[in-house]
């Protein structure tokens, strides 16, 4: 066997989206030799898809804004389940992270006095989102990419080598983390997508920044890279995940044509007068106003239509109910046979205003449908349905350092959990990845500085990882038919979409777990054709291990949480339950279970208590508001003195 390619670094960053690049920049600036490993080309990460903006209480547009207001908005958005310490750090540090980008060359849209402009967004009390038109994520990622290049140029001038201290390993996939006998991080094992050759990294610290899990669902706004790699790598290395039941579904994604299934349709369409209709042409949302919102929404179409022009004397249309309500309603309409031809419902703005007006108010939506779907939204209705958008759950980390339960293993961005609680506010993910990307980079740097010796990986683990990676090329076990990875993936997406999607029930999730168990068995017989050079079938077969593991974490957590909160809606437990607010569900796997499945190790889920919020932070809220979420016993710490 030929010698496997080896590299030695101080810090490995897995993932080159916003969080990964920000972490790498920090580690490199602290003087550490840093490698960035990413599945795609440098600069293609999913961060480029973010449109709206990056939330930071800079107060450029609304002077009254402050970190305290941002903190409150974030906790409310997450229905008070968030890691309050993360929400605090996030709100306090986001402005510095945005300003720093500007010093690295970012060009945000401006206010009239030349500062960074900020826009309104759902759930944010004040205009707070720094933005560049509707391509903020691209600006953010490109700026970080160019900062990495700037640091490489500095190294080049000093050493003659661009990659002396910071190197990007693009189109390289990490399949396993390596740990020493005590469980501390020692490195990582992966393969070059281009050649299929293996590569081993020795490093005492790893920062996971691999993003989300959306590719386990049929309808998603996420790219192929979102296969939950970081979540699964962390589990297999001995770290735990939290909040995996919380998956954000946006109610209006495109469902047709197939080429654009899942792409978001902005809420602005409804805000500007677009209405949802079923196949009978009925505006069905009037039948779905839940009791808690009774009286706040229009009861007739006439009143709803008057609201657009006169909001003082009319109530708003139920088309603008909160996202989970709208998504639930669409789901019911489709299930009961009143859906559109392609399994969604109709979003109609064409019959509501003149064509010219639509093009003026919704230029990007007009363009998106025209270009991608050949649909003229000024002439015909759009077909929309819920789309998997973001996972709130992720690797359980220390808020200040980003360190997981495994020494030397850090995480930031979407693959880390806790920050957003049960539901993320728009605009809070770009700021999240900057704040916690930097903190994870710092955490890793401090950890490495404090180490006496570099951990050495357990003997045999590299060979085991290589065998595991090559298994899909083996013939299936005797008598078994070879499984096609594309077929398995499609079936997994079907299971998660249909049974663990936007609306959940115990019965459906039990079936889902059974089906996932079957898929786990079939994955062992997966067979790929061809050789190792740039072979997408093989890549998918390996990614499926992670997708299956994460899907079991989502389904098991969702089955256990017997309430509805944020991104987790149980048809059989439709209410918020204060007894669940202070409990988080923690997913672990037993890595060394002798009888376990090495391909997709089994996960277990257990409830744990969330640390109670610090008193000064609790005091930022009115007691009346907290009483909607907290048990009475928890509120004795509040200065207004909740009844004990």
């Amino acid at each position, binding site marked *: 066997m030929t010698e496997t390619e080896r590299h030695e670094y101080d810090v490995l960053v897995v993932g080159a989206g916003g969080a990964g690049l920000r972490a790498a920049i920090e580690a490199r600036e602290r003087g550490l030799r840093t490698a960035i490993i990413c599945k*795609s*080309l*440098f*600069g*293609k990460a*999913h961060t*480029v*898809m973010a449109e709206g903006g990056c939330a930071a209480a800079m107060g450029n547009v609304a002077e009254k804004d402050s970190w305290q207001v941002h903190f409150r908005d974030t906790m409310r958005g997450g229905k008070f389940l968030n890691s309050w310490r993360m929400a605090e750090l996030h709100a306090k540090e986001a*402005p*510095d992270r945005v*300003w*720093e980008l*500007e*010093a*690295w*060359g970012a*060009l*945000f*849209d*401006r206010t*009239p*006095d*030349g*500062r960074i402009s900020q826009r309104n967004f759902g759930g944010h009390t004040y205009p707070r989102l720094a933005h*560049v*038109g509707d*391509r903020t994520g*691209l600006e953010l990622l*490109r700026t970080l990419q*160019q900062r990495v*290049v*700037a640091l*490489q*140029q500095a190294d080049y001038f000093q050493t003659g080598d*661009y990659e002396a201290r910071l190197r990007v390993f693009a189109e390289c996939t990490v399949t396993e983390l390596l740990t020493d006998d005590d469980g501390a991080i020692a490195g990582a094992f992966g393969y070059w997508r*281009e050649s299929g050759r293996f590569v081993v990294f020795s490093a005492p610290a790893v920062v996971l920044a691999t993003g989300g899990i959306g590719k386990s669902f049929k309808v998603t706004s996420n*790219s*192929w890279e979102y296969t939950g790699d970081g979540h699964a790598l962390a589990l297999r290395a001995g770290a735990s995940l939290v909040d995996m039941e919380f998956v954000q579904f946006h109610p209006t994604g495109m469902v*047709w*044509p*197939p*080429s*654009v299934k899942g*792409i978001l349709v902005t809420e602005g369409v409804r805000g500007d007068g677009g209405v949802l209709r079923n196949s009978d042409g009925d505006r069905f949302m009037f039948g779905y106003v839940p009791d808690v919102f009774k009286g706040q929404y229009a009861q007739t179409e006439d009143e709803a239509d008057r609201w657009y022009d006169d909001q003082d004397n009319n109530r708003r249309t139920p088309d603008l109910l909160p996202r989970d309500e709208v998504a639930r309603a669409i789901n019911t309409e489709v299930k009961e046979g009143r859906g559109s031809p392609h399994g969604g419902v109709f979003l109609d703005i064409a019959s509501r205003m003149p064509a010219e007006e639509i093009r003026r108010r919704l230029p990007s939506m007009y363009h998106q449908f025209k*270009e*991608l*779907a*050949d649909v003229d939204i000024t002439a015909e209705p759009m077909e929309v349905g819920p789309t998997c958008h973001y996972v709130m759950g992720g690797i359980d980390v220390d808020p200040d350092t980003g360190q997981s339960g495994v020494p030397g293993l850090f995480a930031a961005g979407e693959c880390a959990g806790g920050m957003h609680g049960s539901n993320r506010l728009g605009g809070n993910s770009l700021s999240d990845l900057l704040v916690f990307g930097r903190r994870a980079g710092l955490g890793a740097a401090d950890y490495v500085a404090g180490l006496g010796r570099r951990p050495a990986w357990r003997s045999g683990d590299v060979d085991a990882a290589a065998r595991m990676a090559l298994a899909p090329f083996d013939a299936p076990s005797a008598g078994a038919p070879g499984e*096609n990875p*594309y*077929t398995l993936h499609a079936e997994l997406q079907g299971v998660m979409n249909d049974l663990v999607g936007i609306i959940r029930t115990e019965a459906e999730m039990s079936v889902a777990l059974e089906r996932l168990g079957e898929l786990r068995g079939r994955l062992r017989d997966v067979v*790929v*054709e*061809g050789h190792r*050079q*740039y*072979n*997408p*079938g*093989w890549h998918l077969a390996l990614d499926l291990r992670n997708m299956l593991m994460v899907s079991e974490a989502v389904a098991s957590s969702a089955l256990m949480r017997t309430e509805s909160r944020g991104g987790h809606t149980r048809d059989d437990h439709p209410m918020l339950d204060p007894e669940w607010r202070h409990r988080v569900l923690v997913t672990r796997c037993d890595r060394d279970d002798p009888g376990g499945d090495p391909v997709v190790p089994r996960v277990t889920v257990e409830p744990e208590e969330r640390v109670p919020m610090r008193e000064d932070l609790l005091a930022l809220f009115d007691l009346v508001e907290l009483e909607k979420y907290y048990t009475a016993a928890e509120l004795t710490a509040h200065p207004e003195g909740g009844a004990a």
Partner: protein
Amino acid sequence: MSYTGRFRVWRGHAGGGALADFEVEVNEGEVVLDVIHRLQATQAPDLAVRWNCKAGKCGSCSAEINGQPRLLCMTRMSVFTPDEVVTVTPMRTFPVIRDLVTDVSYNYAKAREIPSFTPPIDLAPGEFRMSQADVQRSQEFRKCIECFLCQDTCHVVRDHEENKAVFAGPRFLMRVAELEMHPLDVSDRVAGVQDQHGLGRCNITKCCTEVCPEGIKITDNALIPMKERVADQRYDPLVWLGRTISRRPR
């Protein structure tokens, strides 16, 4: 509405390859990338193609369709008639790795050769003040999704490997323009764009602008203004005279 479409897809590696014929289901509303994915799922599981967002935002799935540099995810099947053969080949300007995947490292090497944004030394983060009108010009260039289709189509390097060492290509000449037009960049980039990055080799045929999926006016708004600045600095008779005099040995 489905039909059986005829596709010719280039398959091979650095050592060589050939067009392979496929008959494949095509459904209403699909783009070329959907059909490529169907080929992977049903007929050619190891067919190599890059892609990410599938929404024209990441610039990964660049290739040539019937000879035209295009994004696979933004080329709708409805632009072809059902009996038309659709030919998909890798970008010609870059070395093939496998099938539709090419080695685009040339672009990353060029990106490193451009001196980075240089703000004034005394300006702290948070103190930047720029007007919208002033940032707008560079913002247009920052819409670039780095699909490298402009690099692929540019005749300076398309069949001229020998020019790659001295020519940054439209994407990175535009990057220089972006920094030159940045209201707070203090670096002088005019000499470099001509001498190090090869702007003089561009003869403004606008091919780059034509293939840009973001609709950036690369030639008109970036390259020509940079050429004008070079001309102003290099060929203005007064500037020339001044420079010649100051260079005289005393």
